[in-house]
């Protein structure tokens, strides 16, 4: 059940850290981090079925909609890391969420599907249709993914928000890295994983 992108995330997180996972699903990544890093974890999830599974797995799960903002729930600096794994593209105001994340924790970890992946470019640029891939399986008219972006889009948003990028990794559809990916991440990275923090002025 281990996934290479989880290994990358795990590698960035310190032993015994406080971790908030936004859009945590059934809490699989949190469980992984508890097992590997003994983190103190809290997950936030809106979907009933997933919340029930997370609670049944003995995790701390808070049921709430990320679109309502997270500032109300947590004080400043109450966690070491906030994770948003494959969720930011489905949020109404990603830019607001990024800001709130970095109020709550000193570092953020964000993963999302890369819209600049070559198959997406091919389908849109050559075939002239909105892409559907393994990472983006939904048709344009019925998709939770309302804010898709490329690596460059994300990095320019971070720049604008005064967010510093500490690490970047890209993986393919099997969530693995390779020399080709590292050489041409914008084209061959299907998923991006960033470690960010507020720029110190």
């Amino acid at each position, binding site marked *: 059940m281990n996934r290479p992108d989880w290994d990358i995330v795990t590698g960035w997180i310190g032993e015994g850290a406080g971790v908030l996972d936004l859009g945590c699903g059934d809490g699989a990544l949190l469980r992984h981090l508890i097992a590997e890093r003994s983190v103190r974890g809290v997950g936030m999830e809106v979907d009933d079925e997933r919340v*029930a599974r*997370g*609670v049944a797995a003995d995790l701390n799960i*808070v*049921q*709430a909609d990320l679109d309502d903002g997270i500032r109300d*729930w947590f*004080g400043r600096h109450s966690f070491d890391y906030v994770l948003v794994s494959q969720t930011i593209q489905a949020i109404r105001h990603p830019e607001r969420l990024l800001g709130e994340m970095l109020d709550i924790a000193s570092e953020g970890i964000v993963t999302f599907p890369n819209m600049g992946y070559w198959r997406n470019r091919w389908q849109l640029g050559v075939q002239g249709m909105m892409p559907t891939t393994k990472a983006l399986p939904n048709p344009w008219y019925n998709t939770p993914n309302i804010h898709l972006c490329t690596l460059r889009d994300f990095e320019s948003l971070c720049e604008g928000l005064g967010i510093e990028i500490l690490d970047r990794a890209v993986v393919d559809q099997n969530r693995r890295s390779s020399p080709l990916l590292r050489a041409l991440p914008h084209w061959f990275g299907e998923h991006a994983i960033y470690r960010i923090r507020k720029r110190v002025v």
Partner: protein
Amino acid sequence: MSESTAKKSSLDGTTHQPSSVGLVEPQAAHIDTPLLLDCGRRIEEYELVYETYGELNERADNAVLICHALSGDHHAAGRHRPEDRKPGWWDTAIGPGKPIDTDRFFVVCVNNLGGCKGSTGPLSTNPETGRPYGPDFPILTVRDWVNSQHALMRRLGISRWAAVAGGSLGGMQVMQWAISYPEAIAHAVVIAAAPKLSAQNIAFNEVARQAIITDPDFHDGRYAEHGAIPRRGLMLARMLGHITYLSDDAMRAKFGRELRSGKVQYGFDVEFQVESYLRYQGTSFVDRFDANTYLLMTKALDYFDPAAEADDDLATALAPATARFLVVSFTSDWRFSPVRSKEIVRALLATGKSVSYAEVEAHQGHDAFLMPIPYYHQVLRGYFDNIARRMTEDAGTEEGYA
């Protein structure tokens, strides 16, 4: 041997058909340790009536305390007689194979002090006067109740509850347990509750109290000595309460504007179904509840505010708690809305407590906490499964060291 096998199979997730705890009989404990109350008065000795379901295990670590709400009592599950029309008030959740599974847990529910179902209260004889306490019964707080429940806990040979659970005013007792006796509660299940009443909540309680107190049959609370009952007042109080327990949607779904006789009568008799329902709820309540107890219970609600002693900071008030929390709210509950539960969750998160929170989509209003809503029960079941698992693990660890 067979018992432990059964326990194991239920932990493995093998489902067995939920059933009733069956016929149950209330028990009574006489506590002769004086209870010093928040109001400054003392109760020298008192009686607590309670029910238990399931078996206390050898390690006495599988006990779950259920705290009742405003008009509840110790009869939480099962039936007293086979012909009883209704089972206990939380029968949907307590029983073999139910979320609070009596095949694993020893469940205790107490009629709170000041109640009218057998525990010492306004109907009891005041040893100082030889007459019923009536209005002289001391005003109680949630903390007083928890202290009295703690005395019962020790009487039952329990040093720590695996969980304390309750809805509404019951949920407030759960919070108080976690604050007052952190070592004696492993899990706190706080359902449809609030960290304190809002002005609106207190306003509703005050109207209910005024309805009772201004009833000509109230006789300053000494109605029993006058052979009277403040029926109209208590009935009005209950009718008002019921409106606040239901949501607008639930009332619309249940009654709409349906007329009892099919057409309007241009009079003040019962015409709409909702009127009939409220009057029925009101009158049947008068037969089973005491007006002085109702007054006491509403006051306990009004006074509950653990943060008041911590500079109005709920996180500080909850700081002593070591229990793991589950907080549940219901979307259409406007008496204790999800926003109020969120205050509790936020305070727990602020001090790094272990807490899960579920906001259940439900149209039934405050009453939803008594209903077998699938998602709600799924969360409860999952949570209590973990409690049982943790009990087994703790037992294993200790045996390992022995």
